């Protein structure tokens, strides 16, 4: 029976809300291939976090693996895959998953398909697979062929729901001790700095965002005012960042933050692909723009046509008038 390993990252024993997403397509794959499905994680904290999932698996254990160390993690995963003769290794393609899998792929000198959204065919000639993967941050997809004996894939985040973590019975996770050269401890977290907690782009229920149409750093004041009235935060497009109007940490987009607020208010943003992929998961979008043909206006749920400064001032006045 062939073996599918699902690498599930944990941060000192804590699973992120999306940590188990890759398990959903992996289960379907295991059924289709009649393969055994096994978890792979790191450390005793990882064992405790994954036991409730109710699957068999492996806990990679080594002094270098006590905190996140991408080189050593990748080395350990590669050794596990080789030793257990795995035919597939899958991970979520979040920051760490993508990084650890790339290290494992490099160690094993095998191809790695990043950000897969669908496994189309596992029965191609010579064992080739066909998968669909993300390009351009999601505005384009690619049908890709993967030719290798060992298949390494990351799954695009937010593509599959995480399964209900409570299984029928606690899974049994066995300890795997990899051989890790001491030198690999060189790439390891040595310090953590916590920043002030509060509303962030990623968590705010409403984001009031500005682009080229805002015109200057000072002009963002009115967006700040509306965001504060609504209990949200200010975001911006790449143009606003590149012009130095807003810090990069405010940027919504493919190379900025991807957001999913209840309402996204896009002011003076035309809606290039780069921006759209960052805000397309918003539940509702209100676009404010002078151009009724702007791509973001045509993709938005609601739009107001006109000068954003005038419109925002009127909206703020209206809210204040309600008391």
């Amino acid at each position, binding site marked *: 029976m062939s073996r599918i390993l699902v690498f599930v990252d944990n941060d000192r024993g804590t699973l992120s809300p999306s940590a188990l997403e890759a398990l959903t397509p992996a289960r379907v794959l295991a059924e289709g291939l009649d393969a055994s499905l096994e978890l792979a994680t790191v450390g005793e904290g990882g064992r405790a976090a994954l036991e409730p999932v109710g699957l068999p698996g492996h806990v990679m254990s080594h002094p270098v693996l006590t905190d996140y160390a991408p080189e050593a993690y990748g080395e350990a995963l590669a050794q596990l895959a080789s030793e257990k003769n795995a035919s597939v290794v899958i991970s979520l393609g979040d920051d760490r998953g993508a990084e650890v899998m790339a290290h494992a792929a*490099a160690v094993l000198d095998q191809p790695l398909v990043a950000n897969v959204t669908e496994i189309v065919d596992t029965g191609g000639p010579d064992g080739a697979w066909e998968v669909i993967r993300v390009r351009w941050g999601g505005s384009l997809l*690619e049908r890709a062929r993967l030719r290798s004996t060992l298949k390494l894939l990351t799954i695009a985040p937010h593509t599959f729901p995480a399964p209900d973590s409570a299984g029928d019975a606690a899974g049994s996770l066995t300890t795997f001790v990899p051989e890790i050269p001491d030198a690999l401890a060189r790439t390891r977290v040595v310090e953590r700095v916590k920043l002030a907690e509060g509303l962030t782009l990623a968590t705010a229920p409403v984001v009031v965002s500005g682009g080229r149409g805002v015109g200057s750093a000072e002009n963002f004041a009115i967006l700040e005012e509306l965001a504060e009235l609504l209990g949200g935060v200010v975001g911006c497009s790449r143009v606003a960042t590149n012009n130095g109007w807003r810090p990069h940490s405010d940027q919504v987009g493919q190379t900025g933050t991807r957001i999913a607020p209840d309402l996204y208010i896009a002011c003076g943003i035309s809606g290039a692909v780069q921006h759209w992929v960052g805000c397309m998961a918003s539940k*509702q979008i209100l676009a404010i723009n002078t151009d009724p043909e702007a791509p973001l206006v045509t993709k938005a*749920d609601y739009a*107001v046509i006109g000068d954003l400064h005038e419109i925002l001032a009127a909206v703020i006045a209206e809210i204040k008038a309600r008391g």
Partner: protein
Amino acid sequence: MNILVCVKRVPAPGARIVLTDDSQGIDTRHLGFTTSPHEECAVEAAVQLKEKHGGTTTVLTLGPPEATEQLRYSVSVGADKVVLVPADTTELDPQATAAALVEAIEELETETPFDLILFGNESADSGGYQVGIRVARKLGRPVISGLKGIEIDGDRMVGRRETDEGFEVYRLPMPAVAAAKEGITLPRYPTLPGRLKSRRAEIQEVPAGLRTGGQEMVSLLKPAEEVTETVILGHGAEAAPGVVRLLEEVGLL
């Protein structure tokens, strides 16, 4: 301090990506090209380190002859040397790309060893999230991805990366490799003297073997697009009551 930055030339799509008739690529007839955003920031970070610590910044790209446009641009914003690794395809898989880059880097390092090699975290177009890591492993050097801050402390590269709560710090012994993310620093605009210098810049060609990797593009496809019926709430200030009603419906007021 000698720094190498590996960049990728990518199309600059506006609001809509149009595919060629055979779905083998993006229709770029009406598009400009640019340096992939993460790499553009990596170039700026490298130039700033050079300005602070001395040394040279070399920018390398693997691509078609037209990619010299991006190399010249990097000279206009402060790069000292530029290198083209010629490739007539933009569809080399990550494994093959990394192998070719390693070959070119080893060739360059017979003259100048690099203390630091920077990549972008992922290319804007194909987004494989792995080339920098593969190159580092092949060269036997430490590497981190997601680099959002960089400083040099003696023989160490001190790198920061973002987490949900704040950031993590790594201290890698150099020579080291890192894959940078946009926001590590703000790229400057070219100056007039920079532009003039970029026109005269000599482009070094370093050929490398281009093998076939295990991942192959079959075709590109557009994701199913939701057709949205946009409700126009009004024009100008008169739309304010409509906007406020929407804010109430969403539960924000």
